[in-house]
């Protein structure tokens, strides 16, 4: 089975709220000092899902693909170290900060150019904009079925069997390939590459393409939504810390305050 794993390099989503800043004029996030960009967490789980399918089958190829700035090569190398076979970095004019619409166009075109792809694994949503749009866009542009928010994927005679997480439970589906599958955190932790794998990753092939290489013009890379404002909502702390000599007394005081405030 030939698989593509799509990954996005993003500012660390674990950045505490206190260190999170926005340049409102530029409508951009200012990366917190001393933090490094990371691979969006669900994308590492997408890589893990693809690696498990390859191990299950005992054969197959995993391509890692990222659309973004030149620095995203680092993110690709991280997934090559986990065990993927080769990488594709698609960057250049118009692609430093593409929106979901443009990104889906690029990924769909790249998948066609790579050719013979049976499955594309993506994260359920990128942990910067928290949208979850690109995968369905890619599926639509390629005319493939989609299965989203998966916690387990296995291969079975040209199909994928996928366990999905629903808001009120789980479901198991079977999808005919080629297909797009998105992965959620319920899959479990992605593997850590060993030191030797990290060193070897540098020697794996990494192709660099531009949008023009994929036959895409500027019109296809235009966003469909205009970002009018980006800001940090103001929240003021008005907490009343409950006093007490002992935790038991605090508990009693809390119960009393809740009653006084007519909350219970």
């Amino acid at each position: 089975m030939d698989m593509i794993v799509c990954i996005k390099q993003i500012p660390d989503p674990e950045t505490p709220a206190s260190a999170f800043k926005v340049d409102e004029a530029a409508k951009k996030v200012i990366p917190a000092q001393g933090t490094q960009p990371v691979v969006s967490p669900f994308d590492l789980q997408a890589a893990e899902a693809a690696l498990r399918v390859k191990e299950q089958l005992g054969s197959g190829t995993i391509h890692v693909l990222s659309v973004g700035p030149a620095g995203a090569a680092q993110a690709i190398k991280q997934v090559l170290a986990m065990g993927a076979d080769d990488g594709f970095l698609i960057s250049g004019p118009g692609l430093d900060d593409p929106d979901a619409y443009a990104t889906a166009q690029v990924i769909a075109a790249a998948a066609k150019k790579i050719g013979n792809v049976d499955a594309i694994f993506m994260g359920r949503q990128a942990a910067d904009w928290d949208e979850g749009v690109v995968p369905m866009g890619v599926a639509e542009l390629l005319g493939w079925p989609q299965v989203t928010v998966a916690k387990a994927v296995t291969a079975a005679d040209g199909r994928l069997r996928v366990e999905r997480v629903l808001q009120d439970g789980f479901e198991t589906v079977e999808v005919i390939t080629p297909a797009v599958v998105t992965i959620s955190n319920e899959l479990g932790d992605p593997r850590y590459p060993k030191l030797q794998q990290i060193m070897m990753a540098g020697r794996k092939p990494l192709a660099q393409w531009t949008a023009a290489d994929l036959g895409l013009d500027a019109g296809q890379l235009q966003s469909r939504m205009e970002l009018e404002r980006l800001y940090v909502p103001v929240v003021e702390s008005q907490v009343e810390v409950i006093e007490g000599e002992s935790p038991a007394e605090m508990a009693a005081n809390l119960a009393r305050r809740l009653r006084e405030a007519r909350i219970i």
Partner: protein
Amino acid sequence: MADAQGVLVVGEVADGNLTGLTTELLGAGRRLVEKAGGKVGCLLVGAAVSGVANDAIAYGADVVYVAEDGAFEPYAAEAWLPAAQEAAAKASPAAVLLGQTSIGRDLAPRLAFRLGVGVSMDTVAIEYDSKLHFTRAAYGGNARAQLAPKSLPAVATVKGKSQDPLEPDSGRGGTVEHIAARPAADQARVKVLGQEKAKVEGVRLEDADVVVTGGRGLGGPEGFQALEELAAVLGGAVGASRAACDLGWYPPSAQVGLTGVTVSPTLYVAVAVSGASQHMAGMSGSKNIVAINKDPEANMVKAARFAVVADFKQVLPSLIEELRKLRA
């Protein structure tokens, strides 16, 4: 669509009723058309949905588009898409609204690409002046983004509890139209083999007026027993942080937050939950937050109305006892 006007709501039906979020979308749709003009349409897709068409009208729909067929269930994007497309073609709306649910998350982006338009996911505010504006959280809830569609119809999923439903009015008038599109079940590329729905004992998390949530600081699944007791005394439901769900201490269907459930109860008690922005994204609309945390600097403590800074193990037994006395 040059003359795009009005709103099309893609509704959801569960256990034979419109979901609460569907009624919220209809309320939002009504308020939008009051300013922008046009009608509120409501698409209902499923095996037996025509029975709730009148409810959709009572909650604000002018036209209900019914796509009724057993083959629409369980949901699959490729089965629902042609029905949604047909309804969009009939209604020619300025906005298509879906809920931020398992279905909305999966369907809305695909529908947007099929229509060649943009989409705003997990929208918390919809405004209209001379054009539409959507506000949504981004960066794990640390930022807010306001977006305007460049072409119509704009597709948006809407976060639960962000919009108010109307009081249902059974005297409202409306019409029902039938959607012809049917899924070609024999050509389905995605087949649902089975579903396993979480058991809900007592009140549903989304609907609960009191929610008691546990986090990683509980130290193990046992901690949730005390939370269940506390929830029982308060007549509430139990939620969990993602960290607690990932550790297998509580089922993912109880996860509160960005990728889980959104709640806005009268009382939210967060026990040993740090209050990461992605968690706050699912509960910051709560009217009163109580934090029980041993760290006075925890974000949840700062966001709370009342906080007890102590080890939860020493607080919960007395709290349960005191509340029992008060409620007796």
